């Protein structure tokens, strides 16, 4: 069935016989003050296809989809649905035209049940309702769409993957023919992602279409029939996916050959790896916010001038590890030494003072104050030092100067430093946070999932920042779930599972399979043998 | 100087009700004699501005509505004069601002229907050309007189009716604040009832407001729950009457005929009529004859009971009306011996309370609880 659809698309492309697109955009432009969000974008969505929309953060993907779903109105150009030009005054009209979107951040009422969420704000919701009726209707719709949901469950009790299914059900129940998904796999486990892909293929096979926004190249290659690449608000190209590979897509996306080379190579003049550890943990344990022991007897050494990767499926103690290492969370046991100094029971202030920088896992929630200005945010590590502070005085002008220099180093163009930092794209926020932390990271940088949610360009910037630090003799602890990144960057990789370190391996002497096994709970050879000896 | 305490009510009526003769008052150290030797200069009618400051809304169908009837009467009597008014003046610095606004708008006379203490004194001191009539107050100034209805007489009369009608001998009173008008009202009511049923008692609840239907309704429910079967109060709205109607009890009201809110519960009301008094006062001011004094609207002329309610037994009404006639004939019902609710004799046998004593009443009689 899937093959048939793909063949259809190929045939139309080859024969030139026009299948009427469900939706077309013609010459769409959208400008914001000082920013061209979209310009001259043409886009066709054919029935039966899964169409990937690829682009860096800030490439204009979200704006384009907001135009298509009626949230924005284009400054120029037109939207054509089934051959007829339309204007959407609101998302309601877009939904009525069969265009629905599942946003990256779900728009569900958590206290309501699945059935209630599905029926919320829906013209077809019956006037007289009961719990049973809503659940029966929901179950029926779900069955017809082949989506497994629990109609009576409260949304707050559902896993992220299940919540996403509810969102999709909500959209599809409104008779959507076009389903737009914004970074749908960012929140899913691999198994959940596989299930989602299956459902999407079935949906498309019924003559509908999917727009799949992503910057994960593997995914795009796996799921899509065609791919459209945006860059700087303009369309670069639309290609059948089977004519692409990762390298081609990456080049289209960032506009230049991406350095996928081994970044473990030192530049000439780089400082060597020290013998003494700059950061060392001995039997460190910690509890999570719920009081569960989520870090168990971890011992690690990080040397100056090296990048130590922390691999593992998210939620195996990495968050607590990075917090303990930066003083944000107190260890419940064990010792932490930075440059030989025992900081076990010290707070974030002392860690920062000892040259430990920290790129936190969730930058918007813990690394930034989203409502405050860019200036306020980028000086958060240095507000207490000269020249920003003199005694108890704080100098906004000095802060603004520092903010400008950090933004410059991060290559982030900031139109107005007084603007709330939440108005920046995720990639730019992360660049600023990274640059801010690099300034204080004279000994250690702890980076927790620094590439999460970023596009290739921003990820490369992050990577180059870390090698720059490494070459300057700083120890970098790099937490990631992307094995490719870890291998590319890390000198050694420690694998975490259930709060314990399964082993530390030299990344030049280990293969992906071994790491994968350790992530699943297998101890490394040395560790395993040590246990046998015991 | 006339000694206020020795005035009979009839005499008082003659003096104050007619043309507004100033009364020098020297009662119990609470009152100062009038200081004005010379009246304020006359004002031409077409130049006159008479300002009224109300504690409640004119739409309250109660106290403020009654005063506004007085204002309308003034306007009718002096069509070329200008009357202005402000409603809902709080007992706060806003009151002072309102009176200053009146003065700045050229008011020749400012009449209030509640007491505003320093907020009005401070303005009056700086506005010597403006006459002030300050309701429910005791301070006389060169340009400030005080006035109040002698509501305790009809309160006593309706108390007699309540004494006849009460089966539990327990009465209830919804007070505003522990101020003399609350003491006088509840005491007079109880004394009237005790003239019939010597074991009668009254429970008082103060709700810290003159106009708070919700609080007065709650207070009324509590009073009835405690056994009261005839309610009285000093509210500017009919909340407790409605409670009495629902619960099959009786209620005596204030200000206006409010029987429509509780036809079965309605006993009577303490009625006020400020029209004649206001017109006389304004006329004196315009003619250059006004001097400050303490003015009490006498029983039978501006202060009286309303026609009895439908369900009031003829016997009770008759007995009460006989007392009314007696008072109008010059009898003082507030005669010793009167004890306070701590058992101390406050008015020895053979003595009686003057209007001034009653006007400044600040203790509860035996059998009254809750106020002080």
């Amino acid at each position, binding site marked *: 069935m899937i093959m048939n659809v793909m063949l259809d698309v190929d045939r139309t492309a080859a024969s030139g016989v026009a299948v009427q697109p469900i939706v077309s955009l013609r010459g769409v432009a959208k400008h914001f003050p000082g920013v061209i969000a979209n310009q001259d974008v043409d886009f066709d969505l054919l029935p039966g296809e899964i169409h990937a929309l690829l682009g860096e953060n800030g490439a204009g993907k979200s704006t384009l989809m907001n135009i298509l779903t009626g949230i924005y109105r284009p400054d120029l150009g037109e939207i054509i649905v089934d051959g007829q030009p339309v204007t959407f005054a609101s998302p309601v009209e877009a939904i009525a035209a069969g265009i629905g979107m599942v946003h990256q951040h779900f728009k569900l009422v958590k206290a309501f049940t699945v059935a209630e969420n599905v029926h919320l704000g829906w013209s077809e919701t019956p006037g007289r309702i009961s719990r049973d009726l809503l659940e029966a209707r929901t179950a029926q719709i779900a069955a017809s769409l082949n989506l497994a949901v629990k109609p009576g469950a409260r949304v707050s009790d559902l896993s992220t993957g299940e919540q996403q299914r509810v969102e999709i059900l909500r959209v599809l129940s409104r008779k959507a023919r076009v389903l737009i998904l914004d970074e749908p796999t960012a929140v899913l486990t691999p198994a959940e992602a596989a299930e989602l892909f299956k459902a999407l293929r079935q949906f498309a096979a019924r003559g509908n279409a999917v727009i799949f926004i992503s910057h994960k190249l593997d995914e795009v290659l796996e799921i899509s029939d065609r791919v459209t690449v945006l860059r700087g608000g303009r369309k670069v190209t639309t290609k059948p996916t089977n004519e692409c590979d990762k390298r081609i897509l990456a080049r289209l996306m960032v506009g230049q050959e991406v350095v996928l080379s081994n970044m473990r190579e030192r530049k000439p003049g780089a400082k060597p790896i020290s013998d003494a550890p700059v950061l060392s943990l001995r039997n460190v344990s910690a509890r999570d916010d719920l009081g569960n022991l989520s870090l168990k007897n971890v011992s690690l050494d990080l040397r100056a001038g090296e990048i130590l990767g922390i691999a593992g499926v998210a939620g195996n103690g990495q968050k607590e590890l990075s917090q303990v290492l930066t003083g944000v969370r107190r260890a419940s046991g064990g010792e932490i030494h930075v440059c030989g100094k025992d900081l076990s029971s010290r707070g*974030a202030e002392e860690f920062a003072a000892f040259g430990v920088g920290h790129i936190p896992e969730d930058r918007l929630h813990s690394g930034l104050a989203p409502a405050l200005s860019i200036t306020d945010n980028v000086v958060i590590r240095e507000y207490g030092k000269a020249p920003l*502070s003199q005694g*108890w005085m704080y100098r906004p002008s000095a802060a603004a100067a520092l903010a400008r220099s950090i933004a410059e180093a991060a290559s982030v163009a900031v139109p107005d430093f007084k603007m709330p930092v939440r108005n920046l794209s995720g990639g730019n926020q992360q660049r600023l946070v990274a640059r801010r932390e690099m300034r204080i990271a004279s000994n250690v940088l702890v980076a927790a999932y620094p590439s999460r949610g970023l596009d290739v360009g921003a990820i490369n910037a992050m990577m180059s920042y870390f090698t720059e630090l490494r070459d300057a003799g700083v120890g970098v602890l790099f937490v990631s779930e992307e094995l490719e990144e870890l291998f590319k960057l890390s000198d050694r990789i420690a694998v975490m599972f259930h709060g314990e370190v399964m082993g530390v391996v030299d990344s030049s002497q280990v293969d992906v399979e071994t790491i994968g096994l350790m992530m699943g709970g297998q101890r490394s050879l040395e560790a395993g043998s040590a246990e046998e000896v015991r | 100087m006339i000694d206020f305490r020795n005035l009979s009510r009839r005499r008082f009526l003659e003096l104050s009700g007619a043309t507004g003769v100033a009364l020098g008052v020297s009662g119990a150290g609470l009152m100062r004699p009038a200081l004005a030797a010379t009246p304020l200069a006359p004002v031409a009618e077409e130049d006159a501005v008479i300002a009224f400051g109300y504690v409640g809304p004119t739409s309250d169908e109660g106290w403020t509505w009654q005063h506004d009837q007085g204002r309308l009467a003034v306007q009718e009597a002096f069509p070329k004069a200008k009357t202005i*008014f402000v409603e809902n003046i709080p007992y706060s610095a806003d009151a002072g601002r309102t009176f200053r606004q009146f003065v700045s708008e050229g008011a020749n006379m400012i009449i209030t229907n509640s007491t505003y203490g320093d907020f009005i004194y401070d303005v009056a001191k700086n506005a010597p050309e403006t006459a002030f009539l300050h309701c429910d107050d005791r301070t006389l100034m060169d340009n400030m007189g005080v006035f109040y209805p002698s509501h305790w007489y009809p309160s006593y009369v309706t108390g007699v009716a309540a004494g006849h009608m009460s089966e539990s001998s327990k009465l209830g009173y919804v007070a505003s604040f522990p101020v003399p008008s609350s003491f006088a009202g509840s005491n007079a009511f109880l004394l009237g009832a005790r003239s019939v049923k010597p074991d009668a008692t009254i429970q008082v609840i103060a709700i810290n407001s003159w106009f708070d239907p919700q609080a007065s309704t709650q207070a009324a429910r509590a009073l009835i729950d405690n056994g009261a079967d005839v309610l009285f109060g000093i509210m500017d709205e009919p909340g407790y009457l409605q409670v009495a109607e629902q619960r099959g009890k009786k209620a005596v009201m204030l200000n206006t005929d409010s029987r429509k809110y509780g036809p079965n519960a309605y006993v009577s009301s303490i009625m006020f009529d400020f029209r004649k008094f206001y017109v006389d006062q304004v006329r004196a001011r315009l003619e250059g004859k006004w001097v400050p004094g303490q003015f009490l609207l006498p029983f039978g002329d501006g202060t009286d009971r309303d026609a009895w309610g439908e369900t009031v037994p003829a016997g009770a009404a008759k007995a009460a009306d006989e007392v009314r006639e007696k008072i109008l004939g010059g009898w003082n019902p507030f005669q010793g011996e009167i004890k306070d609710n701590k058992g101390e004799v406050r008015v020895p046998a053979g003595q009686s309370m003057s209007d001034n004593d009653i006007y400044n009443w600040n203790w509860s009689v035996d059998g009254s609880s809750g106020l002080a």
Partner: protein
Amino acid sequence: MSIRIQRVPSENMAGGLAARLIAIVLALSIAAIVFAMSGADLGKLGAHVFKSTFGSRFGLMDLGLIVTPLILTGLAVTVAMKVGAWNIGAEGQFCAGAIAATAVALFVPGPTILVLPLMFVAGAIGGMLWILIPTLARAYADVSELITTLLLNFVGALFIYYLATGPWLDPSGLSFAATKRLPHDVPGFWGDVHWGLPIAVLLTVALAGVLNYTRWGYEVRIAGSNPAAARYAAIPFRRHLIVVMLMSGAIAGLAGMFEVIGTTHRLQGGISNNFGYIGIMVAVLARGSAIGVIAGAALMAVILKSGIALQTQGVNISTVLALTGLILFFTAIGDELSHYRIVRSKPA
């Protein structure tokens, strides 16, 4: 050419001011239409309101007296907002400050010059004590200060009634729901306007300076905006929360102190005049800017004073309240609209 309206992320200062002015003008225009339809002489009414506010010495003095407590309560709410707390209880802290200052005035003998600073401190401490429990409950048990501060308002108001009609009742018998006239007075600054006004303005400017130009102020901003970021940057969120909330209470308490010692001279029920609640409106109008509090308080003072002046012209009190609401409503819309700008673009 087509004209479009776009939302922009950050508002510009001039646009915000213009939007506010337009909002006020619009509200007044609607009011004018209503008045004109009911046959009022608009010119006369306008002149009257102007004369009663800016156009006369006594009008200005009244504005000065109204604006003093409003600046302080508005500042109290704004300061709490800085640390991420909603102090709905400025009304209660106002009462507590008034009570504490009255206690000093009644029971501490001495010349005004010595007792006055004591009353000042007492007013601040009174307000602080009133917010202490909500503060600790929020800091240590994460109990919403919204509810706790609000509920204590009623306690504060009733406590004043109790004191003013009970133990502290004027012994002279001349007033029946108030204390005796307090023996001290805040010195006059201009006519009836006492030194509370310049002190309130100075306090506002000083606090704005502290928030913008000290390390502490920076830390408070971060802590108030995102406690997790504060923890990350080793900024003691809880300590700042407690200190700032207590400060907020102290400022509201000062408003009560100035009102009782400087304006009413007696403690009595109803003294707060809703200044605590109006302070919330002032803070909302000021949009978190300490300096904006002065402008917000001034606007509210003019509205309140105009309300009195309009009433003497036969404008119903309900109309005055509706007009007040209208101005605030339009200001809120204007604030939102200042986020938009008009762009012209040529069609394709």
